[in-house]
Every structure is written in structure tokens, then in C-alpha cells.
């Protein structure tokens, strides 16, 4: 009996004092995207999106924004403006306006999402050309804007030209001596999200960007391409014809010479492709050989142009520094920084088209 009473007592005490704050699913404003706009020299505007799920399962957007000095401060104001607690656990996308990224850097905002344990490191980051608040306020069919943007970027990473991108990779590049972070640039065009290009960072500040058309070359050096398509022009009997090639996979072999003195890096990039479409007459070995050559030359040219551009700007998004560091004993970062601008970096591209689909020759 005594034992029984003690047990009941213990349960009561633990039940009363042990209570912790609940976050019941349907009483929360679950943020799916957060965006930051530039609002004057010391002020930013933070916008969050949370989906409103109606009983008929349709989804609409709810955006709240507020102005503050720090990202956290702005988010406190958000809580004040909402009937439900605003929670961060499901943030999928963090967006920064281009102006903010260029003038202030994203350091503070990254630190916030990094420090908060409830935010996953799969969070996708992106730079927005234009007003972030407007983009997040746009309603997309079937999804709330945060999920929509996340899905589109994710899809374009898998099947398009956007290099794999998430908070962890950003931080890795940010904290590494021999690499600089990159982010995709998106914009709102009409009622759709458009992938505009890539933004390059030096530290936490955006210093450069490239347009969409240069992204193939970038991604093929940066990582493996799995499904992205590439169209090239050929001349056939005087007419301009187009060949569409899908990159199936890429192989890379780095070679670093004289790493102790003045390094010289050679990259052999192999692209294995799949011919998808041809506007001309006949697909034959000749055309394949020709297309391979044209594509190799084109990619090589693009790649070298990109590399020169990065060297000029003093940024290293392609992680040449990492490649050299990992091949050099007692790597000296200072020395590398000095040498980087005039480094000799060669890219040799080798394209091979190994399948042409299920039609041989000309369909007609």
C-alpha cells in the first residue's frame, strides 16, 4: 500500500513539473520558407511563408513579414503578428535578395539557420533577383510558395543545371580555405519561378554571377551531371541543324603539377552523353563524331572562360584550392591566395556519345 501511494505521488509530481511546451501540429504556423529583403542600411525585412491547409486539403499561402535589425529580431516580430506560434522546423528554403547578398552578405542569416537545431541542413538557399517578399507572396497551384520553390530547385538540381545546393554544402564551402560557396539565382517571371543563373560568393558576400547558359559548363566541372540536356548547333549541308544531347555522367581526373612551387592544374573532363534529338536528316557515325568534337570544344571554351573569370575576381567556387591542398603537403593558404590569380588551369574535355535512342538512321 505504501509503495502504491508513493508511486501515485511520483507520477503526479513528474506529471505536473515535467510538463514542457507542446507544439501541437495543427496549432502552429509551420514556416516553409524564409526570405530576407534589403530595407535600408541597417534594416532588413524578413518574410516567412506558412501553408494554410484547408479542410478540403487545398493549400493556400500565408505570409508574414516584418522589419528589424537582425534576422532573429525580425522573426520575433513575426511571432507577434501571428495568432499561432511561428516555428522553424520545416523551413525548406531560405531566400536572400540580390541586393542584400551583395551589400551586407548573408553571414547573419546563415548563422541563424545554422544555429537553430530545429532547422535541417538540407535547407536550400537561393538568391532572388527582385523582391523576395513579392515572390513568397505569389500563390502557386497545389503548393505553398516555400514548397514550390524547394521542389523546383530540387528538380532542377536533379535534372537540370543547378549544382547540388543545401545549407551543409554552403557551410562546407564557406568554411573551407580552398573553396567558395555558390547559390542559384531565381526570379519571378510572370507567375512562374525562373532559374536565372548562379551567384558566387566571396566569404558571405555575393561578388559575381553567371547566366543560365553558362551553367552547363559549370555544373559539369563542379559535379556529376545526371540528366541535364545540352543543345548544340551543327552545320549539315549548309543548313544549321540542332543536336540535343543529354549528359548521362561525367568523369573527372585532376592532375596537379609542381604543387610545392607554382601549381599547374589539369582537369580531364569526360562527358558521356546520349543523343536525344536531331533536327537534321540522318544520325550516323559521322554526325556523332562531329557533334562530339563541337561539344567538347564548346564546353572547353566555356569552362576556360569561367575559370579566367573566377581567377580575375579572386573567387574559387570550383574548389581548385581544395584539389591542390589535398595533394600538397603543408599547404600554405596565403601563398595559394597570391598565386591563384595567375594559376595555370587547363581543362581538357572529351565527349563521347554512346547511345542514339531506339531509332537508327533517319526516321523518314
Amino acid at each position: 500500500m505504501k509503495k502504491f501511494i508513493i508511486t501515485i505521488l511520483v507520477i503526479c509530481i513528474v506529471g505536473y513539473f515535467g510538463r514542457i511546451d507542446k507544439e501541437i501540429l495543427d496549432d502552429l504556423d509551420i514556416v516553409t520558407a524564409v526570405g530576407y529583403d534589403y530595407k535600408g542600411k541597417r534594416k532588413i525585412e524578413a518574410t516567412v511563408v506558412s501553408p494554410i491547409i484547408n479542410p478540403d486539403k487545398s493549400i493556400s499561402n500565408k505570409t508574414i513579414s516584418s522589419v528589424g535589425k537582425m534576422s532573429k529580431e525580425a522573426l520575433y516580430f513575426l511571432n507577434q503578428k501571428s495568432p499561432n506560434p511561428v516555428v522553424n522546423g520545416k523551413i525548406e528554403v531560405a531566400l536572400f535578395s540580390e541586393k542584400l547578398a551583395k551589400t551586407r552578405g548573408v553571414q547573419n542569416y546563415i548563422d541563424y539557420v545554422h544555429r537553430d537545431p530545429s532547422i535541417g541542413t538540407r535547407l536550400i538557399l537561393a538568391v532572388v533577383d527582385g523582391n523576395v517578399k513579392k515572390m513568397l507572396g505569389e500563390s502557386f497551384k497545389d503548393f505553398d510558395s516555400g514548397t514550390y520553390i524547394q521542389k523546383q530547385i530540387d528538380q532542377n538540381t536533379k535534372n537540370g543545371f543547378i549544382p547540388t545546393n543545401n545549407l551543409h554544402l554552403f557551410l562546407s564551402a564557406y568554411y573551407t580555405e580552398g573553396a567558395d560557396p555558390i547559390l542559384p539565382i531565381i526570379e519571378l517571371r510572370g507567375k512562374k519561378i525562373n532559374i536565372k543563373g548562379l551567384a558566387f560568393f566571396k566569404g558571405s558576400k555575393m561578388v559575381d554571377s553567371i547566366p543560365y547558359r553558362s551553367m552547363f559548363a559549370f555544373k559539369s566541372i563542379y559535379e556529376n551531371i545526371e540528366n541535364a540536356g545540352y543543345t548544340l548547333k551543327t552545320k549539315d549541308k549548309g543548313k544549321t541543324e540542332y543536336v540535343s544531347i543529354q549528359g548521362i555522367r561525367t568523369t573527372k581526373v585532376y592532375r596537379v603539377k609542381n604543387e610545392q612551387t607554382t601549381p599547374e592544374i589539369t582537369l580531364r573532363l569526360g562527358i558521356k552523353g546520349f543523343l536525344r534529338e536531331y533536327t537534321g536528316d540522318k544520325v550516323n557515325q559521322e554526325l556523332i563524331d562531329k557533334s562530339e568534337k563541337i561539344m567538347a570544344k564548346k564546353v572547353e571554351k566555356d569552362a576556360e572562360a569561367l575559370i579566367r573569370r573566377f581567377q580575375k575576381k579572386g573567387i574559387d567556387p570550383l574548389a581548385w584550392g581544395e584539389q591542390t591542398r589535398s595533394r600538397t603537403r603543408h599547404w600554405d593558404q596565403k601563398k595559394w591566395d597570391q598565386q591563384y590569380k595567375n594559376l595555370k588551369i587547363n581543362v581538357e574535355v572529351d565527349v563521347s556519345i554512346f547511345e542514339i535512342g531506339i531509332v537508327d538512321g533517319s526516321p523518314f
Partner: protein
Amino acid sequence: MNWFKKSSKKEEHTLPQVLEYLKKSGDFLDFQNPQSPTPYWISYFRSLVDAEIIHRDILPYLNKTTIKKIEELKAALPIENVMVTSDLETIRQMMLSGCVLIRLNEKDQQGVLVKAEMNKVREISIPEEEFSVVGPKESFVESITTNLNLIRKRLPVPELEIREFKLGKLSKTRVAVIYISGIANEENINTALQRVGEIEIHQILDSSYVSQLISDNDNSPFPQLIDTERPDRVAGVLSEGSIVILVDGSPHALIGPTTLVKFFSALEDYFLNWQLASVLRILRLIAVSFSILITPIYVAVLNYHYELIPKDLMATLISSRDFVPLPPFLEALVLELTIELLREAGARLPTKVGQTIGIVGGIVIGTASVEAGLTSNVMLIIVALAALASFTTPVYKMSNAIRLIRFPFLVLAELWGMIGISIAFIFLMGHLLRLTSFGRPYLEPIYPPRLEDLKDAFVRLPFKTQPKRPVQLQSQDTVKFSEKAAKEKKDIDE
């Protein structure tokens, strides 16, 4: 039990006094047979004695001859079970268990006890709780003699030993401890005999009385002895070295020492081929963990860990909970209780009404409460699945235990979410680690880890791979059959 002692205080010293006392009950007969050549006295309980035996086997023989001495009387009867005695206690006992007392004179101190008990028992029927599609279709009945017969038939060896006890001050129930000597571990036998022998209770109505009285820890929700209604299961475990306890008047035998995983093995597992049996066992174990954990996990996730929920599921969950006024914990509790209620109502009512109740309750109440917005349909699905999963356990008492331990998990999940579930798991783990059955670890073969026994725990490997008896039972003779024959390998085409 004072009232009992008080009445027996007035000791009877002579046989006529005893009979006089017994005459107080209306069904006791004591009369002199006037038609016979010898004027003998005959007395018995009408309700205990088979009249047919008296009329066919006793009275005709007594009426034929004249008898002077009591020994002659004994010789005259064609029945084996005849005893001449003057011991009052024996006489009283025997008459209460269905014997007929015959005396020559009314004042004699000595008489002949003839066994003529009425044996009205239920027919042996198909097992209901442990039904199996394949395999024998016999189950125990309420008579211990029949039950022993069922076991003996399956194990015709002289080593099968049966020790009988008479337990219960009032009920005088026959309790038999059965084991195969030479196989069962001495220590286990002694534990069982000692515990059964030490039982102090007024009445034993069923074997579950014995099971509760001799279990190692009676504060545990877990049954520590398997109860089965299948003679084939009993024969199976006896030959492995377990000890079986049969109780007169109960169609359930008790098996010990046992382990937790044994409760999840159905006898059918041994009748099917081993691959299928293993899959079924794993399915059952998954069902059990599912049954315990799914409602608590749902409550924990909804209360605290919205981060865990897959995005595609989120819309479903939120929209299903849109109009539900109760917090998830209360919602779960209400539904769990409703299901328990339905089960209880179904169990108490006759079969046909019970089924109706199940359907009405399950479908009508469920659908109506979702449509009324009192519960969310996701919660309804989860609770119903959990209830369904808990019924896959072959041993009924274990499925009760499983339904019970779900509630502490639920409460801790409400309190601390996933951490709460872990804490509940730790308590459960600690409890199971300390639990024993007849002094043998309950969690074996998980802990202490025994690879040999794992062959017949979560899975059931082929018989050939298990030539030895379970380590857990510490059998005296560990070998089931020769390993050599099982291991013999042949080359191709040889």
C-alpha cells in the same frame, strides 16, 4: 477462514456420528437395503454418484449372496476400486469425492468404500483460443483424468512423471505437476513442486489461480507461465524439458519455465515449413511492437515533433485534425478506451450478439465520430490497427498484457514525446530484465544471449539445425536427436 474451522471443531469420533453429520445435506442417502439376504447399510451422496454403477455393478452382487464379514463383501464386488477402512477422515474424503460406503450394521466402525463417481465431462472439442488450420484439433477439457490421458497418449514413456497435489481448503482441487524425468532440470522440478505444494488458498477455480499464485513476480503485467489448451503443445514442451501443471476443472495447462518470445510462437509455426513460420513469427513481433508503439508515437509526433512528419503527409494530418476539439493525447485515450469497451462488451456477450456489437461499434461509432468531427480519421485508423495488431499474439494473456502496457507509453509520450517513449522503454526493459519464470531469465535468448536458442525464437529454423534442447531449460539430457544423421552431407549424384 475461521468459520470453517469453527464448524469442524466439533469432532466426530465414530462412524455413525460422521454419517449423522453428513445427513444434514439433503442429497445424502443412508439406508438399509431390505430386499437383500444380508441387511447391509449403504450410504452415498446422490449428487456425486453414478446411479447406473450402483444398480449395475454393486446392488445385484450384494443381493445375490449372504455376507457375514466385511472382507467377503469386498470379494463379492466385481469392482477393482474397493477399500476396507475404518479411518474416519478417509471415509469422509472419499464419500465427498463420489464413493459409496457399505456397512453390514448400522453401528459398525468399518465399511467398504466403492468408487462409483459420476463422470460427466464435456466432449473433447476443437481448440478455440489457439486454433490452427494445420495440425491436431484436440483441446483439453475440464477433467484432469481426460487431460492426462491426452498427454500420456502423446508421450508413451515411463519417464513421464506426474505428481499430484490436492489444493484448496474448500475445493480440494487435484493439481498435477507433470515432467519427464531425465530431461527436465532437477532444479526446475523442485521449484515447481515446492511452489505448488506451498500454495495456501481456500479454493482453486481454474489453472490461472495456480499461475498467479506461483509466478515469480505477481506485480508484473506479463504472464510468466504460458497457458495453453492444446495437448500437442504440452507434449512438445514436455519433451523439451519444460514442466506442465494441470488443474482439475480447468481446460488450460500451464507451462514453465518460459520466455518472452515463446509467447509469440504459435504451435502452427511447427506445422508449417520453416520459412513461412519464420515470416509469420517476425510479422507477429512487428505487430506487437506496432501495437505498443504506434499510438504513442503518433501522439508524440503530433504534440512535439512536427519536424519529423513528411511534408506530403502533413496536409493530410492537419486537415484531418481541423475540427477536432481534443488534444491528440485525449483523442487517443478516448479512442483506445472505446476500443477496449467494444472488446469487453463483445467478450461478455453471447457470440452472435458480440459480433453485432463489434460491427455496430466499429463501423457506426467510428464513422459517426469522424464525421461529427470528434476524432480525426487518421487517429481512428491508427488506434484500430493497433488493436488489431495486439490480437495476433497466440497466447491470450500476453495480448492482454500488451494492451495494458500501451497506456504508460501513451502517458509518457504525452509528457515528453519521443524521449518519453524511450524512458518508458527503459522501464520496460529493466522490468523484463529482472523478470524470471521459475527462476530462469524471462528475456532469454535475448539476454542472456544464447545463439542456440535464437534458432527457435524470432525465427524458426529447420528441425535439423536444432538437435539440442533449449539452453534456457537447462535440460539434463541436452540431446534431442543424433546430430550426425542430420549433418550428413552427400556429394552431387551420389
